[in-house]
């Protein structure tokens, strides 16, 4: 096992110690994901195979992969930490901040992406608005994707160092090259297969924390009582009832920000236009599978708080020490919020189970990174390389470019990880940069799909002005913190609230500019809108399909469960 000698290079301080069986479980995981990559290489011959997994995925596989690409380990550890810090309010990012948007993607937007046969979201912009919008979207997405991938990689390596004492360089190189190799070999097909495997491991690795935790606290009511005893003051266990005022909840946010900023702009922007997740659905075998995949993903997404948020809440209830912020933790030597998930893992999981839990964290990291590099390779190859460097080339050439782009993406990500290591504050800036682009892009794509009058000039200038306004608002608050009261409508607003409102304003600017410019410029002829715009796209009839097999039926089921869950935890 090549892993073992390097793993044994451990620092003196660590949160948990792994036994032989734990290390065997982790090593087997690496063997499994690489074996899948080598096995699938023989099935990845054409561009359609490499970039879109042959468009042969069933709704279940595309749906689970769709969710797994989002369920990175930082997502898990970060939201478990947020649950410890802000309580059950963190669940909003899984429910109102995801479910309506995922259902909307499946029912409304997917037909246009799928029927247009585009390879990517920037590719759709090319068909609808022309080359300038595609280039703007592709360059921003490609750049941000590899930067985010590197930042996630560094953060994960840092976590492995804190939790297990592993050498940070070892974690970065071994994990990244493993992901790079299996995506290089099997492209999106390999990424999707591994994401399904990783999704299963994440559930089996993390679910036990919640089960044993609830047994320890005597169930949900026992946990709530313990939290109220340990942390008197603002409620940590109510989803909506404390959102009437910025000062009444631990997050410092108002329900308007949650509903319109998170639930509308940020959520819809991410779930419907971020190619990292949309690419998985484009790989579906037919339109019905493409519509069902986000709905299946939404069903599972609703359950994720039970393995991510619940451990954070259980931490509030059962941990004898109070966790603190990262800065305070490094100054005092105590544990930070970010460590709550591994702390809970170490609290309940003995040998074997601990290895499975750590594997779940690593699987989360690798599924997220595979999503980034496969999306990067597709956008670079189809939206930048092909139109600007080599327009007409054999399909095999683009597959080859995609393969090497995968490795390039991994290497740039590793470079970013080392850059972040030197300049730690860059992390906040790049994450902010990523958010700048998502909200306006949603405005552009939404108007492009649903309003035939939107013109190419309107789409481009709306996207550009929305992105610039998001950057402007962010810079305004950085330069003058007092500006927060205007951006987020309250001086009491905290970082989360600022993000919500900034996204909302940038989306509004994008929509207004798009509409105004569109009315001032000439629209595309109707024949060029076929397959791209509502009203000019012939959608296959579902009249012969039984009700229980229709996407709308399952979307309603998921929607009803979503409403019930929100009422239960109101």
């Amino acid at each position, binding site marked *: 096992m090549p892993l073992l000698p390097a793993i044994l290079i451990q620092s003196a301080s660590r949160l948990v110690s792994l036994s032989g*069986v734990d290390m065997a479980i982790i090593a*087997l995981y690496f063997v499994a994901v690489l074996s899948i990559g080598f096995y699938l290489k023989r099935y990845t011959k054409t561009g359609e195979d490499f970039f879109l997994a042959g468009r042969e995925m069933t709704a279940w596989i595309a749906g689970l992969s769709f969710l797994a690409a989002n369920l990175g380990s930082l997502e898990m550890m970060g939201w478990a930490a947020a649950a410890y810090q802000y309580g059950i309010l963190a669940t909003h990012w899984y429910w109102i901040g995801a479910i309506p948007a995922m259902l909307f993607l499946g029912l409304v937007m997917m037909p246009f992406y799928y029927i247009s046969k585009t390879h990517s979201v920037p590719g759709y912009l090319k068909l609808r608005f022309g080359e300038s919008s595609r280039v703007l979207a592709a360059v921003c997405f490609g750049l941000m994707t590899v930067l985010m991938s590197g930042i996630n990689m560094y953060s994960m390596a840092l976590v492995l160092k804190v939790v297990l004492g592993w050498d940070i360089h070892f974690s970065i190189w071994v994990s990244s090259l493993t992901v790079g190799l299996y995506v290089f070999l099997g492209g999106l097909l390999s990424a999707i*297969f591994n994401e399904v495997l990783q999704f299963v491991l994440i559930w089996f690795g993390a679910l036990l924390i919640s089960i044993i935790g609830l047994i320890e606290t005597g169930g949900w009511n026992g946990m709530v009582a313990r939290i109220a005893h340990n942390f008197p003051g603002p409620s940590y266990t109510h989803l909506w009832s404390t959102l009437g005022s910025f000062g009444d909840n631990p997050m410092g946010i108002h329900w308007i920000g949650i509903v319109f900023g998170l639930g509308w702009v940020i959520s819809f922007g991410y779930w419907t236009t971020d190619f990292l997740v949309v690419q998985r659905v484009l790989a579906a075998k037919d339109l019905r599978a493409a519509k069902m995949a986000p709905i299946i993903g939404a069903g599972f997404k609703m359950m994720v708080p039970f393995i991510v948020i619940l451990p954070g809440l259980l931490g509030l209830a059962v941990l004898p020490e109070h966790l603190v912020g990262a800065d305070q933790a490094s100054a005092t030597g105590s544990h930070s919020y970010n460590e709550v998930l591994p702390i809970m893992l170490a609290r309940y999981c003995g040998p074997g189970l601990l290895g499975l839990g750590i594997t779940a964290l690593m699987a989360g990291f690798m599924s997220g990174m595979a999503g980034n590099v496969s999306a990067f390779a597709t956008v670079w190859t189809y939206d930048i390389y092909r139109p600007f460097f080599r327009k007409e080339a054999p399909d095999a050439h683009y597959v080859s470019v995609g393969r090497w782009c995968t490795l390039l993406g991994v290497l740039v990500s590793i470079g970013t990880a080392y850059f972040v290591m030197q300049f730690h504050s860059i992390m906040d800036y790049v994450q902010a940069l990523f958010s700048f682009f998502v909200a306006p892009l949603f405005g552009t794509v939404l108007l492009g799909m649903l309003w035939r009058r939107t013109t190419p000039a309107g789409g481009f200038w709306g996207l550009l002005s929305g992105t610039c306004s998001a950057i402007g608002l962010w810079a305004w608050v950085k330069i003058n913190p007092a500006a927060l009261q205007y951006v987020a409508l309250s001086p009491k607003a905290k970082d989360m609230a600022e993000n919500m409102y900034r996204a909302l304003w940038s989306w509004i600017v994008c929509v207004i500019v798009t509409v105004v410019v569109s009315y001032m410029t000439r629209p595309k002829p109707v024949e060029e809108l076929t397959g791209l715009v509502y009203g000019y796209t012939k959608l296959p009839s579902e009249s012969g399909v039984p009700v229980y097999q229709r996407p709308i039926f399952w979307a309603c089921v998921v929607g009803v469960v979503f409403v019930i869950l929100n009422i239960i935890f109101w």
Partner: protein
Amino acid sequence: MHRSGMISIWFFVGTLLLIYGILILGAGLYGLSHPPAVVLAELHAGIWWGLLLILLGTLYSVRFSPWRGR
């Protein structure tokens, strides 16, 4: 996936769960004589979780076996 001859992803999932189940069950049984220093160790979670993984792993490995029906 409908591609001829391709092994189903669920076979890979089932096989890995089966192997993990055996390892975790073994560690759980060892814990009967050498209890791990975790909260609620008396629940022997490793044994139950290992058995669950073995059950699901076996089901999926057999159901999606590439040799089934040949």
